[in-house]
């Protein structure tokens, strides 16, 4: 990300660059290290089950909706607000999909489009109250949480609705097609991995050239090489694991697109910059010509669409719409953002952080389930992890102040 560009005027010397890099990103590296430690711990405790291809696939599927929503939630939290309603939005959109497809026999692709539009409308409804009427989001979305849960139960008449046509199910449970039919091995996945690695290296190289063109000092070349080897290794390793099961899940491809898109928006786009400015100091942003009300409104619309998408994924995965789908999910999503270093007072937070946070929660859920830890203690552990992560933040801030 952008932290790679260093300032020529003061930072010179490779070692110094690396130290600064680490110091400036201690939060993210800290959480990444924590995530790796937790993964290694469960890999050891579960006797190697955690990293089995089938479990990795499961892990991705189980967490896909949390990650999807964490991307939208991150923008809301960076804006300085919160959205408590996403769990209920997941339910109501899933219910709508169920009713349309199963009861009214609507084509599932059309249903998909309708569901996303309804999500946008829900986001617009809540965004209107927050951004234009200036009712605190906590209250608006608490109301939304009740309203949409109630509508879900009304739509489904308190019962589960299912099953769905195969095409719809495949959104969640399908894998990308294989064009080679190599027995026991999904060659397309490996090819995608290779192409992706090449594209990533190419993009990084181009960014480096661009920096040099403007006369900026860049990170040392060996660091650049090491970084790319690491990233390529991770991409190829994941692809290899996936290839030896059934290939890349559709959901993973969708997630990859979303994560890349949102990482780009937050770090490189004008809109992203404005959201961070609004969260950091709304008055200053407004006086600098940022239309803060409109921006906040669309941030909620975006959240609504992503929550709807998550609702579809959940319904497709369970192959039914149930009245208590997504119950309590908002808490996992919000926790992921805060574990990932987002600030409750706004203006601070990254997509990568939220992603690491979501995976940390996901691995904890998955690992503890494999070990047979009850849902009771799982909640206790997740609560403590959230508290510890934010404590780490506060501690670091006080130390540097």
């Amino acid at each position, binding site marked *: 990300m*952008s932290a790679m*560009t260093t*300032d020529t*005027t*003061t*930072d010179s010397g490779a070692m110094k660059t690396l130290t600064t890099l680490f110091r400036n990103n201690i939060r993210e590296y800290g959480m990444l290290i924590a995530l790796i430690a937790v993964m290694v711990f469960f890999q050891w405790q579960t006797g190697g089950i955690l990293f089995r291809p089938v479990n990795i696939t499961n892990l991705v599927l189980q967490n896909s909706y949390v990650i999807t929503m964490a991307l939208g939630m991150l923008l809301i939290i960076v804006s300085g607000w919160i959205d408590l309603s996403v769990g209920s939005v997941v339910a109501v959109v899933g219910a709508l999909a169920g009713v349309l497809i199963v009861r009214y026999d609507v084509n599932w692709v059309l249903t998909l489009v309708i569901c996303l539009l309804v999500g946008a409308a829900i986001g617009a409804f809540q965004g209107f109250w927050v951004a234009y009427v200036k009712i605190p989001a906590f209250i608006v979305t608490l109301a939304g949480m009740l309203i949409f849960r109630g509508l879900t139960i009304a739509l489904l008449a308190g019962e589960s609705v299912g099953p769905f046509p195969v095409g719809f199910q495949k959104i969640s449970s399908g894998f990308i097609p294989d064009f080679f039919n190599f027995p026991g091995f999904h060659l397309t996945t490996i090819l995608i991995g290779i192409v992706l690695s090449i594209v990533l290296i190419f993009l990084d190289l181009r960014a480096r050239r*661009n*920096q040099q*063109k*403007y006369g*900026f000092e860049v990170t040392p070349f060996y660091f650049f090489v090491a970084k790319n080897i690491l990233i390529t290794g991770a991409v190829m390793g994941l692809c290899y694991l996936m290839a030896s099961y059934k290939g890349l899940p559709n959901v993973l491809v969708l997630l990859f697109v979303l994560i890349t898109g949102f990482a780009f928006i937050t770090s*490189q*786009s*004008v*809109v992203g*910059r*404005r959201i*961070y*400015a609004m969260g*950091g*100091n709304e*008055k*200053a*942003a*407004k*006086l*600098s*010509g*940022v*239309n803060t009300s409109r921006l906040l409104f669309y941030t909620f619309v975006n959240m609504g669409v992503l929550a709807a998408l998550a609702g579809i994924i959940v319904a497709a995965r369970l192959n039914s719409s149930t009245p208590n789908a997504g119950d309590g999910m908002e808490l996992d999503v919000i926790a992921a953002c805060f574990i990932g270093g987002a600030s409750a007072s706004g*203006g*601070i937070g990254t997509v990568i952080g939220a992603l690491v946070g979501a995976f940390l929660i996901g691995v904890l859920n998955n690992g503890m389930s494999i070990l047979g830890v009850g849902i009771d203690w799982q909640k206790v552990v997740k609560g403590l992890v959230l508290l510890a992560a934010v404590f780490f933040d506060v501690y670091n801030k006080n130390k540097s102040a």
Partner: protein
Amino acid sequence: MSDVILEMRNITKTFPGVKALDNVTFSVKQGEIHALVGENGAGKSTLMKVLSGVYPYGSYEGEIYFEGKECRFQDIHHSEELGLVIIHQELALIPFLSITENMFLGNEQATNGVIDWNEAISKTKELLDRVGLHESPNTLITNMGVGKQQLVEIAKALAKKVKLLILDEPTASLNDNDSEKLLELLLQFKSHGISSILISHKLGEVKKVADSITILRDGATIETLDARKENISENRIIRGMVGRDITHRFPPRESKIGEVIFEVRDWNAYHPLHADRKVSNNVNINVRKGEVVGIAGLMGAGRTELAMSIFGRSYGIRISGTAYRYGKEVDISTIDKAISNGIAYATEDRKAYGLVLIQEIKSNITLANLEEISDGGVINEPKELTVTREYRDKLNIKCSSIRQLALNLSGGNQQKVVLSKWLFANPDILILDEPTRGIDVGAKYEIYTIINRLASEGKGIIFISSELPEILGICDRIYVMRDGKIVGEMPASEASQEIVMNHIMLEEEVVEP
């Protein structure tokens, strides 16, 4: 000397880079009303904060004697215990609590943590009688006018067994009738032996009630006048406040003034909360190419309100009036439109309204003109770094890196970041609101130099300041504002501190040139 209740000796207080008080000596006699006057920034409020313990012992030099004993106040409770109560300009009452609840806040009439409301209410009634306020003790503060709130503050001081009452601009937001009542009350207290320190800009009322007048200027005591012995005219006080010497604190400039580039006519705006209070009253101002136009006035005269109501209606309601740029009427009804019509407003409160403190310098500089450094909504970061470094060098922003957080800069450098932001937006008209507030002399000089350079590049600059020497030092033309109205306009060549101060202070209308 036994009749001296308070003596402050050789008080010196420094803030980083600024000496706010320089060896100030100040004493108040038992049972007198002592007025403390001086321009904004002369050090009156700082002196009172030292006195009341807001700045604790050790953070200043010098000694304070109260009733003959040396005091080393650690905080405001400490000074209040001895009967030294300060009433601030911004009232410190909690709006949604009743008079009684406010009256004993922090001093509750309680045994073992249980409040005795009967006791509290009957005491409140008694205190309200003493200040002549006939309200039920259960009235909520929010339902009372400012004048009555002021009286509640004073009653609250009485509840603390006050011996020396300090009032910081008590009548600034009161109408004549309420002001009159409040002054009567001070005289009444005086007859009961309570001394008061009255900080006020209204020289008429100072003349009326004060027994002594101490004048502060640039953080130093200039003189103490005995108002009981001689009749002191308002002009005599003003002369003391502004002094005679203007040193070479301003870079020289040759004005090359062209056509009118910006003008507002019949500009009216109302207070957003008090819907019947006009904050801008039929204002007509203009600025020409290459001209620096000053707006002088006291705090609360409506200068910031005027500037912000012009800048995309960012303050006030029911705004009316027309704006012209190069003689053509323009729509500046939103901040976005104001910026695209070449107007920039650099706020007086850079921390709250000017900067995103938790962001890097470069993000702050480019915030108002992100289009310039982006293609199709994508930020070109190397380009952003290049242009922000240009501004860092041009305005001499002292920082370890352009990626340093705005939070960690000194006041002067923060101000330069705010200026950079607006220069990068490339306006024709720059409204600078108190651009040198709270920054040291060296940085002030740099800001003046930047303003001169902008004027010579042909921009029109509206310069709002509470410091008269500064306005006289760098402006070509000066407007004087009072109570939301423009009450005077003059070329700087014909202005002097006395003339401007007369416009600001004197209630009677001055003949305009």
